[in-house]
Each structure stands twice: as C-alpha cells, then as structure tokens.
C-alpha cells in the first residue's frame, strides 16, 4: 500500500514535472528540413505583464529561412496569432540577417538555429487562470529548392499573482537578444533617384560599416555592390535600385553590420518636397489655434488704427442715433461683422489663388528671388511713409465707400464692414504680416479660418457694443493720440524694410544694395510728390515725375550686378549665378556647375563622395577650375530655368564648361574619379580646337 502510494505520488510528480516543462514550450514540430518550437520566457504569467515568446527554428545544415525583406526571392516567416481577448502581440524582433548569395540573386535570411522573438502583453484586468496562445506560422525553408511549410503551435500558460521566469529557456532568450541588431539613435535619410538608392546617416564616430540591409522589399538591387563610406561624421550608402521598385516607403528599418556588431536604425524618406505635402506636414493644430487667437487679437487692435477708427465711431454714432430697438442694433452689428469677415475671407481666397497659381508656375511664396525681396522692401517703405503722413493711402477708396455706408439698413452696415477692411489695408501690415506669412504656408481651410478670425477680431467691438451698449463709455474717443499711434507704427515698417534690404544685399552684393538704396530714395521722392498732389499743391507734371521715379527705382533692382557673389558654407564653392557663369565662360575659364538642394540625398552623397574630396579639390586646382554651386532647395526660378536648358526638371545636375567645348554634363551619380576623368578628357580634347 505504501509502495503503491509512493509510486502513485512519484507518477503524479512526474506528470506535473512534464506538464510543467511543456507549459513553457509547444514541443518540437518536425517539418521537412526544419524543426520548430514555440517557447515562453515565463512559466507563470501575471496580469499586466509583458513577456516574450520565441519561435525557435533549427533547420538542416545549409538550409535557410528568410528575413522581413527576403531579398530577390524567398518569403519572410510570418506568425498569425490567436490570443485571448485583450492579449496583444507585437511584431517579430528579427535577428540581424545575413546575405545569402544564389547567383545572380541575393537573399536576406538566416542559416543555422534562428530565434524569432515576439513580445506579448497580458492586460491588467485579465481574469482567467490560463492563457492559451495559438500561433499559425508560415515559413519557407530553402537550400537550392524551397519548401514552404505551415505549422500550428500551442502554449497554455498559467496566470497567477506572481510571474515566474522560465529558467530552462533563459539562455535561449539571451542568445536571441545577442543575435538581434542593437537599436541606435542615429538619424538617417534616404532617397531613390536615377537608378540609385542613396542614404545619409549622421554617425559621429566611424563604426566601420561592412554591409547594410534595408527592410523595405524591392528597394535595392540586392545583388548589386554596396557602396559604403564614412566621411566627416556621416555614413553614406549607395546601391543600385531594384528593377521592381515602385514606391519609396516613408520609413523603414536599416541594419548595419559594424565593427561592434549589427546595429538597427530607421531611414526616413526624403524626396522632392511636394507643395501640398509640405504645407500639410507643417500643419499643427496647437499652432493653428494659437494663430487663430493672435489673428483675432490683431483684428481687435486694427480698430485703433486711424484709418479704421473713424469708421467705427461713425458707425457707433449711427447706432446710437438710430432706432433704439435692440434687435435692430444687434442685426446691424451682425451685418457689419459679416461684411468685415467676408472681406477678409475673400482676401484670403485671393491669396490662395495666387499661391496655387504661383506654385503651378514653379515659384512659391519665398524670399528666393532678389527682385521680389527688393520690391517688398520698397512696399514696406511706402507703407511706412504713409503712416508717417508723407501721403495718404486709400483716400480714393474711402470716398467711394463712404456713399455705400451712408445707405441705411443692413446693406449699409454690411458695406461699412467691407469699407473698414478696405481702408484698413494700408495700416494692417504690421499686424497682419505674421498671420499672413503663416497662412501662406497652411492648407487652404486653415488659412481661410485665420483670416476669418482676423475679421472677427476687428468686428468684435461692434458686437460688444450691440449687446452691451455701456461698452461705448469704455471706447476711447478719436483724437490726436490716434495720429501719434499711427506715426509710431511707421517705425516697425521701416525696420522690416531694412531687414529685407539686408537679405537683398546678401543675395546680390554690396553694389546692388547701394543701387537698391538709391531706388529707395527715389521711392521716397515719389511718395513726397504724391503727398503734395493730394494736398493740391502740385500738378499733373509732378504725378508723372513720381511715376517715373518709381519706375526708375524698380529698374535699379534689375541692374545686373557684376560682382554679385555669395560665399556658401563649402569653402571651395562659389554661389552660382547666371551672370557669374557667363562672365567666367567669357573669360575662357573652366567651370564646374553643381546644382543641388538640401533635400536631395543623391546630391549630398555625390558631394561628399566625389566633389568635396582631396583628389577632386586637387583636380580643380590643377585645371584652375571655378566651382559654382547653385542651391535649389527652394526651387529658385533662375536655377529652374538653367535646369531646363539641359532638359532637366530636378537636381542633381553637374555641368563642366571647358573653353572651346560644348558644356559637358556629368552623370547624376558621381564616383570619386568622375570629375578628374572628365577634366582629363576635356583637357586632352583642347589641342584639337586651339592648335590652329
């Protein structure tokens, strides 16, 4: 009896033990050329915890399974989980892959024992005492032939109050994490252009990268040679693009084999910015709400402008004098507000139409074009002069509008609102500038809302007046202070003009700046004449002279600047300009033109690998080559026109001018020898032309 009991207990213990072990593993599933098991890193789970499951593959010798990007053929292993409600499983944490050559193809995958780890989370409110995990796994195992397989695994883990790790499998999970690439916080960008994948990774220290693996399928030609270079804190990668490449993913994983083992980072796609994408990307709800508030405040302050306040007080007066029935006053206030807001929204709509047209024509709202910068400086100066009282802007509009406002009723109120906006326009610049600038880069609806808020702010005193007539007492009375305020507000405008002129000077050089300043004096004279005429102290002749002066000042901005030079960051490159290029070519000097943009990864890689190198610099010095660099980051129209000369609509573009030879276009993908070879060739051609 005791013997029987003892046997019985040992049998129970044995069963428990085996049950115990089996709970942490599904047991081996044997398939063709590969055996697999599913293993847990915990033998007991508790609610709210995260735990790991490992899919453990042991293939026959020289048989392999595939990475998330399997390469030219093959198939990534996939797991389809069936889990209790609330339990979630993350993506497979892949080990670092290896390149498996099957000439002429290359696959990415794993040979030998392979551990694919997934992280699962038990919800905090998990009630059951058991957690049943079912995994349906698909894999492809290949040597020369491939064998697809599908297998199901089951694990049933107890859920208790204390989590217990599975000690038997600790080593397996340690092995798994050793084989995974270490995540590093390096920033990387990539692009696919002209048959090439190019990437730049900010890497302060050279990690001696020997190979890279992109997780995106059909991106690179996996069998093509990888170009890997580390230059001045940047890792540059290049590889032929895949024949079956169709779309560049926004972001994907990149594994680098380094001297310290494999590391993992993400590459962000960077291509030619598309206007709508750009504006939508920069749209932030919080910023937008802030700008709405600012715009409303700006609109409110507009009421203090001398060009608006008389209208306001006029209307306030007519409100007070008119029928005293409150509903009537309220209706008028609403009509006035409608007039103001609709005018602003219309203004915004016009702006948006211009923006769309501008983008279609290839020039955005940007301060790239020196002519536009110069004209803006003039405009701000004129507005400033107007505020200073040299002349009055918008007098004609005000008079024509006055008649409409004198109409009684809703129509009159509506047009008073419109008039307020129209006459306000010369005074609005300092307040509206910011809102305008912001709205110009926003999606259409957001921009319209900004302007509506501006209008609402401007109409606000009226609405307040209609609902709380006592508010009238708080309103300041019109008087001399308004004129003073107006005159003070001229100075921010003058300062803005100074800033624009500084930008202009940077773009065009000191001589051009001096000419623009002469233009500014002419504009001042023209405005003074205009003011004289408004005061009936000058005749038609002076208007004509004023017009000529303005025309002259604009012409000065067109004057070609022979010494216009801009020194950019790269020491041995000079900024490109049409004139500078023409001048150098006429002087018979060899020139290299490099058209680039900050967002053009191909350009950056080319420069680092092939142009900013000692050998290329030596070649430039040897052939006395002038290196002109054009920055198309903001799609400078002058550069766009230059690109079109070579039937290009994008960068990079490299052109070598050699005296007596037609311009020679270098390939869009440069090698370290490209420039030197081109120069050697061109210089050896030269005698054919000049031997006469």
């Amino acid at each position, binding site marked *: 009896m005791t013997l029987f009991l003892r046997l019985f207990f040992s049998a129970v213990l044995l069963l428990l033990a085996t049950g115990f072990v089996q709970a942490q593993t599904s047991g081996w599933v044997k398939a063709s050329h590969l055996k697999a098991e599913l293993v847990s890193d915990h033998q007991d789970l508790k609610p709210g915890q995260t735990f790991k499951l490992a899919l453990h593959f042991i293939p026959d010798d020289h048989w392999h399974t595939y990475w998330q990007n399997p390469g*030219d*053929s*093959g*198939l990534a292993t996939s797991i389809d989980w069936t889990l209790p409600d609330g339990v979630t499983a993350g993506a497979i944490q892949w080990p670092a892959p290896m390149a498996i050559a*099957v*000439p*002429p*193809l290359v*696959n990415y995958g794993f040979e030998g024992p392979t551990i694919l780890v997934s992280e699962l989370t038990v919800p905090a409110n998990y009630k059951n005492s058991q957690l049943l995990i079912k995994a349906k796994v*698909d894999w*492809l195992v*290949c040597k*020369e*032939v*491939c*064998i*697809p397989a*599908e297998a199901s695994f089951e694990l049933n883990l107890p859920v208790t109050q204390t989590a217990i790790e599975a000690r038997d499998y600790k080593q397996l999970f340690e092995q798994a994490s050793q084989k995974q690439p270490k995540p590093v916080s390096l920033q990387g960008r990539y692009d696919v252009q002209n*048959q090439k994948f190019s990437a730049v990774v900010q890497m302060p220290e050279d990690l001696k990268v020997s190979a890279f693996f992109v997780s995106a*399928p*059909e991106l690179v030609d996996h069998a093509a040679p990888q170009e890997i270079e580390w230059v001045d804190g940047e890792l540059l990668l290049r590889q032929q693009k895949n*024949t*079956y*490449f*169709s779309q560049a993913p926004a972001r994907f994983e990149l594994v680098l084999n380094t001297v310290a083992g494999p590391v993992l980072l993400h590459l962000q796609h960077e291509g030619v910015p598309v206007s709508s994408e750009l504006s939508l990307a920069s749209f932030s709800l919080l910023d937008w709400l802030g700008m709405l508030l600012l715009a409303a405040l700006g609109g409110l302050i507009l009421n203090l402008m001398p060009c608006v306040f008389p209208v306001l007080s006029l209307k306030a007066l007519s409100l007070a004098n008119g029928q005293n029935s409150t509903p009537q006053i309220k209706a008028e206030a609403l009509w006035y507000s409608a007039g103001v807001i609709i005018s602003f929204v219309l203004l915004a709509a016009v702006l948006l139409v211009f923006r769309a047209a501008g983008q279609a024509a290839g020039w955005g709202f940007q301060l790239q074009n020196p002519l536009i910068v110069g004209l803006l400086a003039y405009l701000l100066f004129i507005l400033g002069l107007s505020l200073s009282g040299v002349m009055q802007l918008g007098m004609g509009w005000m008079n024509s509008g006055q008649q409409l406002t004198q109409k009684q009723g809703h129509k009159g109120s509506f047009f008073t609102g419109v008039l307020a906006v129209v006459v306000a326009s010369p005074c609005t610049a300092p307040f509206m500038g910011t809102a305008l600038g912001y709205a110009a880069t926003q999606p259409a609806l957001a921009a319209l809302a900004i302007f509506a808020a501006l209008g609402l702010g401007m109409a606000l005193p009226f609405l307040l007046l209609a609902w709380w007539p006592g508010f009238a007492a708080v309103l300041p009375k019109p008087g001399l202070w308004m004129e003073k305020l107006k005159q003070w507000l001229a100075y921010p405008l003058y300062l803005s003009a100074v800033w624009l002129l500084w930008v202009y000077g940077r773009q065009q050089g000191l001589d051009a700046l001096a000419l623009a300043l002469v233009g500014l004096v002419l504009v001042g004279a023209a405005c003074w004449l205009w003011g004289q005429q408004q005061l009936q102290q000058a005749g038609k002749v002076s208007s004509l002279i004023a017009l000529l002066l303005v025309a002259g000042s604009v012409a000065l901005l067109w004057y070609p600047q022979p010494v216009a030079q801009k020194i950019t960051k790269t020491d041995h490159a000079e900024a490109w300009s049409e004139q500078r290029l023409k001048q150098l070519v006429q002087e018979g000097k060899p020139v290299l033109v490099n058209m680039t943009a900050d967002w053009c990864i191909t350009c950056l890689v080319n420069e680092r690998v092939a142009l900013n190198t000692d050998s290329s610099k030596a070649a430039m010095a040897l052939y006395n080559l002038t290196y002109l660099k054009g920055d198309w980051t903001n799609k400078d129209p002058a550069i766009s026109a230059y690109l079109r000369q070579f039937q290009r609509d994008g960068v990079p573009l490299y052109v070598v001018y050699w005296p007596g030879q037609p311009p020679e276009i270098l390939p869009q993908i440069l090698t370290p020898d490209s420039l030197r070879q081109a120069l050697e*060739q061109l210089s050896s*051609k030269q005698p*054919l032309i000049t031997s006469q």
Partner: protein
Amino acid sequence: MKLKFALSLSALVFAGTLFAAPQVGQAAPAFNLTDSKGQSHSLADFAGKTVVLEWTNHDCPFVVKHYSGNMQGLQKQFGTDDVVWLTVISSAPGKQGHVTPAKADELTSSRNATPDAVLFDETGVTGKAYDAKTTPHMYVIDQKGVLQYMGGIDSIPSAKVGDIAKATPYFSNALTAVLAGNPADPAVTKPYGCSIKY
C-alpha cells in the same frame, strides 16, 4: 572628330550595359530560344501579337500553387489568337528545375497546360536580360514589342493555394488592360517565388 565619335559611341555602349534592366514602356529585350519541339522563336516573330512570358520551374512550390488550376485557367482565358503564351525555363543544365524537352511536354499534358510553347533558356541570357528572379515571374509585351507589365502573378506572396482567391490578380488585370489598349496599373509588382536556378 573621329575621337569624339568614338568617345560618344563608347559612352553609348557603356550606358547600354549600365541600364540593361528591363523597363516598362521600353522595348522588351529581344530573345531567340528553342522550344520543346526544337523550333526556335524570337520576340520579333510575334510582332502584332501580345506576348506573355511565364518563367517556371515545375518543382517550385509557388509554381505548384498556381498550377493547381489558376495558371491553366489564365492560359485558357487568354488563349486567343491575339495572345502568345510562352513558358520559359531558365534552370541551367544540372540545376534544379532543368528538364528535357520530352519531360517538358509531358508536364504540359499532365498538367493540362496550354502554353503556345515551352522555351529553354539554358544559358540564362534571356532570363537575365528580363531580370527574371523568381518562378513564377510574369511579363506582358504588347503588339509593338513594348514591355507593359513585369512582376508577380498576384498580390499575396505565399505558397498556399487558398490565397489565390484572396489576392489581387495583378498579371491577369495587366493583360486584360493591355489587350484593351490601356496601360497596366500597376505595371511593376513584386515577383515572388523560388529563385531561378541560373
């Protein structure tokens, strides 16, 4: 002058080798291959017809998946006088998937397949010219000899027959579009399957 000509000629040849990869919208690479009956075929012979190229390897599980009826169905569906369906075997002699002409014919009849011809590309020159990577791998060439589609047979890369019905039939859609005179959309997709045993 002569030097310049020679230089530009060499540049052209160089560019030619550099961009050997087939491109949709460009002329499909020419070929001249012998079929299982000993007859030779070149792409030029089929001017005026739409040509389908199907790379195959009868033992490849992805090919087996589609020869469970799908491939035969497509061959029948598009088996009109306007379409020439060419099955290509690029497995090198001695490599997996390489078969004798007799075996190829036997496979065709035992599987109820109806290609217009089964072509042998033992050197792999044609397969490499088309950048054919997997079996199956599908190409559609229009009546003017312009490549219109290249890539996978459908959208779900698996070896499971059950996925065929769930997948978007890229190749079938492309061929239908090309026969109607429209461009294929998408015209380039991911080829999936076993690697071709060049």
